[in-house]
């Protein structure tokens, strides 16, 4: 859909205004997002090397296993990671096809 220049401008203005109102939570959430991106990069790097189980990723990255599990779960929900099989008592995860490249 296309917006007129005027509409686009108005949108940006509203967004900025709301952002100013919520400066504190926006800053906090931005910091959270940054952490999330750092962790995700580490996890994805491991998964690009082939399917892995949570303890393997945790050991390789030094991240706590429960955090790895949480991020894997999140990425799985939004189709970035897929479960590919089972290895003993653990499930194996891999990057989803379209995000692999």
């Amino acid at each position: 859909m296309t917006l007129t220049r005027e509409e686009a401008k108005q949108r940006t203005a509203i967004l900025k205004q709301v952002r100013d109102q919520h400066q504190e939570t926006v800053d906090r959430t931005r910091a959270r997002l940054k952490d999330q991106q750092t962790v995700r990069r580490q996890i994805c790097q491991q998964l690009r090397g082939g399917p892995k189980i949570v303890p393997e990723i945790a050991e390789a990255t030094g991240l706590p296993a429960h955090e790895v599990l949480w991020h894997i779960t999140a990425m799985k929900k939004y189709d970035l990671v897929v479960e590919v099989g089972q290895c003993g008592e653990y499930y194996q995860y891999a990057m989803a096809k379209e995000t692999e490249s």
Partner: protein
Amino acid sequence: MTVKNVHVDVLVVGGGIAGMQSALDLADQGYRVALVEKEPSIGGKMIMLSKVFPTLDCCSCITTPKMSAVAHHDNIELLTYCDVQAIGDRPGGGFVIDVVQKPRYVDIDTCTGCRQCEYVCPIDLPSQFDRELGAVRAIRVPFSTAVPQKAFLDIDNCILCGKCQQACPVEAIDFAQQPETFTVEAGAIILATGFELTPAGAKAEYGAGELLNVVDALVMERLLAPTGPYGHVLRPSDGKEPDSIAYVQCAGSRDKTLGVEYCSRVCCMYAIKQAMLLSGALPLADITIYYMDIRTFGKGHEQFYQNAKAMGIEFVKGKVARITEDEDKNPVVRVELIEDGSKVVERAHDLVVLSVGMLPGYNPKSLYGVPVADDGFAAIPAPNIRPSVTPKPGIFVTGAAAGPMDIVDSIVLAGAAAAEAAAYLEEVRTPSPQRAAIEEAVHA
């Protein structure tokens, strides 16, 4: 969004199973009902469950049709993501209620629930619906079976990047939305404000919520649910499939140290149900239930308990004194085996489930003028004969707001509250039938 002023016969507060049932029982009689829910979707705690005892029906098979019926009922005005702010008496009887519509930042009439906004949102947050085991985005449809099936934005966890606005195919996102107050006029009110669970940190002896593999039973419901975070039963510390699972009963009920002296009524049955479901999901796993008394008192419940025993689920009468963890984060349960000479032993499991209790979720005193009893649940002056009637005329209570109860008991009491509210309306509307009869006799 337009400011609406709503005139109804009854306001139902709370869109869990009890509130929905009261609303339906009144609306089906022809009364106009407004159902107000603080969350963006109705469904309450019940919609989070996996399967329900003793029939083992899939929980959403029972809940979602009721949610749908509420949403589509001609006589029900559904007010989600709204808070009741103030209540006044209406001249001539009834109530005037100020309600605040919290901003969803999504136009509810335009949104189609396509979730494209959710997919482009960059931030993942712990999902309250999945008890923090899974993730949600800052903008989202609350859960897969939510009613209404519409997105809302959690502005407190949003970076306001605007990607959702760009992605929305129907221009539903509106960052300029503000809270809006409107009034509801109602002849009677039914409180169905539900319950809370024993907080994770309540019991220091059980790890105060710090042990990753000691979870509460609602977490296990999510693990068992087909829509659950992992899609399997895995333990949260490392994603291992547990071989040995233990339940600790009365973890938050019948416990003077927590000030919760009552029995929460549902924990025995939900633990047994979960144990049975786990036996199906993990056929090789050992499942133990540590209990003081098994209270399977409802219709069909004792038979359910006996079936669980026959399936090989181990019931151990014992008081769990402490839970710690070993170096592999396996929870270690220190338990006094009452039937084995009160011997104290330590047993390691892969995962421990605390059968947490039902606590009062909401105190209706200040807003509704309904006092609570010593246990914190709504006071009911004549519990035997009038179990849904509060001390405040015109205000009724149902579900777990009236004390711990299971789904069946909540649904039945919801019908009772609907009957009381209907009778109250009729008696207010028309002079009391006794008086009508006297008048009739006088005029004849």
